[in-house]
């Protein structure tokens, strides 16, 4: 017991240090900051400046809520979990696609106005809320999960953790659609109907590499999901709050499958540059 008692005292010591550090880093005192928030519906709108008090530990979503409570009760914003888990609160903060609930004010320069605007690749419904329904429609076009027959007589399957790991990376996706927001194919060229976009390619990769799934979606990836439009700029990977390696682990292996079955000049080029990996090589080994 004595050893663990001293262990517990160490816990307390380091806990106190951490607490003090967070107290002194910015203090609990409030200061004022300006938020330049997009207000408007449909295609018309403008930035409006709001001043509000901010304090240690606050995130952008907290500031938006304060503005809502104090100045602009009808300021439209989506959020649910406030813990980075639901992917509702996507917006562009100082021009960067981010989750409002996971962007701490201490990361931003509060001496300048902080701009908060809706995701620009989607039609604006109102203020910070956008119409993301195209993503839901696109998902329906991807053929659904279809497992092989159960492995055991009791109707269950066996799979190794390493096989699970591979798709668990993709299944972490919280459908925040920030990757869709930055992808130039959608953002600048508006090819929402021709190209499902990185989020849905992650979804397709998850299905294609699922240890139990038996469908082959290669043909439609090329023909109807428009994988050929992706030219591997990796912008999507950079903004993913779940740190999914969208381009390298999801899109490129899918492109390689397409190359195996069809001729796709861009995919072929990628393949040459990256050496001859066979389609579907587990991503861990690819790195």
């Amino acid at each position, binding site marked *: 017991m004595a050893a663990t008692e001293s262990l517990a005292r160490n*816990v307390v010591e380091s806990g106190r240090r951490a607490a003090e550090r967070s107290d002194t880093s910015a203090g609990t005192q409030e200061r004022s900051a300006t938020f330049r928030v997009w207000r408007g519906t449909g295609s018309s709108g403008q930035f409006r400046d709001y001043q509000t008090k901010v*304090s240690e530990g606050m995130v952008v979503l907290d500031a938006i809520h304060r503005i809502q409570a104090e100045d602009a009760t009808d300021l439209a914003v989506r959020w649910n979990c406030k813990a980075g888990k639901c992917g509702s609160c996507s917006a562009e903060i100082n021009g960067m696609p981010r989750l409002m609930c996971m962007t701490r004010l201490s990361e931003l320069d509060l001496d300048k106005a902080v701009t908060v605007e809706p995701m620009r690749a989607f039609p604006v419904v*109102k203020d910070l809320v956008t119409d993301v329904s195209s993503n839901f429609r696109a998902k329906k076009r991807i053929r*659904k999960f279809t497992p092989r027959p159960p492995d055991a007589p009791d109707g*269950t399957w066996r799979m190794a953790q390493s096989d699970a790991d591979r798709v668990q990376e993709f299944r972490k996706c919280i459908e925040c659609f920030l990757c869709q927001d930055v992808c130039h194919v959608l953002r600048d060229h508006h090819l929402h109907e021709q190209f499902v976009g990185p989020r849905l390619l992650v979804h397709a990769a998850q299905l294609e590499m699922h240890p139990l799934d038996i469908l082959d979606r290669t043909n439609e990836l090329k023909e109807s999901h428009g994988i050929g439009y992706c030219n591997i700029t990796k912008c999507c990977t950079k903004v993913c709050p779940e740190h999914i390696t969208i381009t390298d682990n999801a899109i490129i292996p899918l492109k390689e499958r397409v190359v195996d079955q069809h001729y796709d000049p861009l995919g072929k080029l990628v393949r040459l540059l990256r050496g001859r990996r066979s389609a579907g090589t587990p991503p861990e080994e690819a790195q």
Partner: protein
Amino acid sequence: MPEYQRHEHDVLVIGAGGAGLRAAIEAAHAGVSVGLVCKSLLGKAHTVMAEGGVAAALANVDDRDNWKVHFADTMRGGQYLNNWRMAELHAREAPDRVRELEAWGTVFDRTPDGRILQRNFGGHKYPRLAHVGDRTGLEMIRTLQDYAIYQPIDVHMECTIVSLLKDGNRIAGALGYDRERGRFKLFAAKAVVLATGGIGRAFSVTSNSWEYTGDGHALAYNAGAALQDMEFVQFHPTGMVWPPSVRGILVTEGVRGEGGILVNREGRRFLFDDIPENYRSQTAADEEEGWRYTQGDKSARRPPELLTRDHVARAIVKEVREGRGSPHGGVFLDISWIRSKLSNAEEHIKKKLPSMYHQFKQLADIDITREPMEVGPTTHYVMGGVRVDGDTQMSSVPGLFAAGEVGAGLHGANRLGGNSLSDLLVFGMRAGKYAAEFAARQSSPRVDAQQADAIVREALEPFNRQSDGEGPYQVEHDLQGMMQELVGIVRREDEMRRALDALKALNERARKVSVTGNREYNPGWHTALDLRNLLTVSEIVARAALERKESRGGHFRDDFPAKDPAYGKFNILIRRGPNGEMQVTREPIPELREDLKRIIEENK
């Protein structure tokens, strides 16, 4: 005359979390027409936040587990106020429901021989929670969502139901508005399944999202259904306490399941000092035994950190009240200490608790692999809800069903971790099945236009009031603070009487709140409407809590700190009386079936 978009369904499911999605899927399988409405976008419901896992006696990790042990654990956790039929069905059916998820695409963590892995959780005798790291809820809701979108289900996203409709005694549908345009939608339905989740936003410190305004509880109450066990609110022992803006965000019990310990400012593992009698034989004698338990040693008993949530939460409150808390009014939760036990502790923690690692790193600048966290209780779950038939999930209103957190019965006085996700699957499925059967037997209900018009007029009132009136946010904020203080984790008669007075005043204020802007995506208006539900459920909680003059499970009375066996014989019911007053009654719990009694004895 207000205008509506009209929709007609055999079964209307309100709520698209785990329970609602599972119900809609089952009803669609049965071949009836199904509508599904939710306040948020599909896939964003509260279920997405669940972390630790889903409880089911699969016996993949410990073959001594079976439905009987799970049943006995659930009853013990609920302090025997549970609807025992539901506890039985839940324990028996959860394994099939979990395996079915796998058939629909869920990728659970695996055992070495490739089966679904299970972890320890408070109150569960054996490792029982199937999980995916600490994002089990995301995996579950996505699986159900991605299955449901290929079923014939009409989904109405971002649509809020403001009232149920009735045709005489039976249910006739529901009325709501779409958030985007603010247009009203009238749903005629032969059966309605409520799957709206909980009431956590009635309190200021909560792990719950904006959606948890007790809508389903209030809708059912207003439609004449009985609510039960509403005094039992679960305060999860470990929410974040610092910085202030994240106060309440959940720290999963999985941290303790993986070996995390709770320590006060004096460095004591204070939970060893106060182990309740009915758990003594199952609790580790010392720290070493507790550690062995978390590492899968089957001969070891669980550490006191894994006692039930009500107990751990109160023990923390006591430490803080008696001046032994951490700097920001919590206690320390430490997982980093396992560095002294495991050489790869850092990777291990990141692998087992990835979202906790990121949550603390991003929101509090704390590296949990090196430093302890500061934690304290947070409002988490409501055991109480709509009283339903254990088999069919139908409420006391014909055609109105309830499943998931909005339903009551399974958890009794206290819910065990992991028993909610399994609840959603088991009873979501049952509600969908029986709602479909019910609908198939009914003719179309008659929807009363006057009833609908009156609901719409009332919903629009905040726009018509003087624009210099108070806004809804301040009233909501004051309500939350009041409930936290007066009807929170430790309760007293005089404080709750004060709460009832305060509620009267808040109701007055709420009746006068005004909103600005127009009907399109107007959160001020939405809050004004949610506020009515919050006030209703807050009063229900306070009245039920006043009636239970004892301490049991999630309900702790400072003035009656002991458990009273006489109160173990009934549930408290609340209904709307003929003149709109709240009627509080005591409903005797039916005698346990003999075989179930024996199971409980055998597992004592």
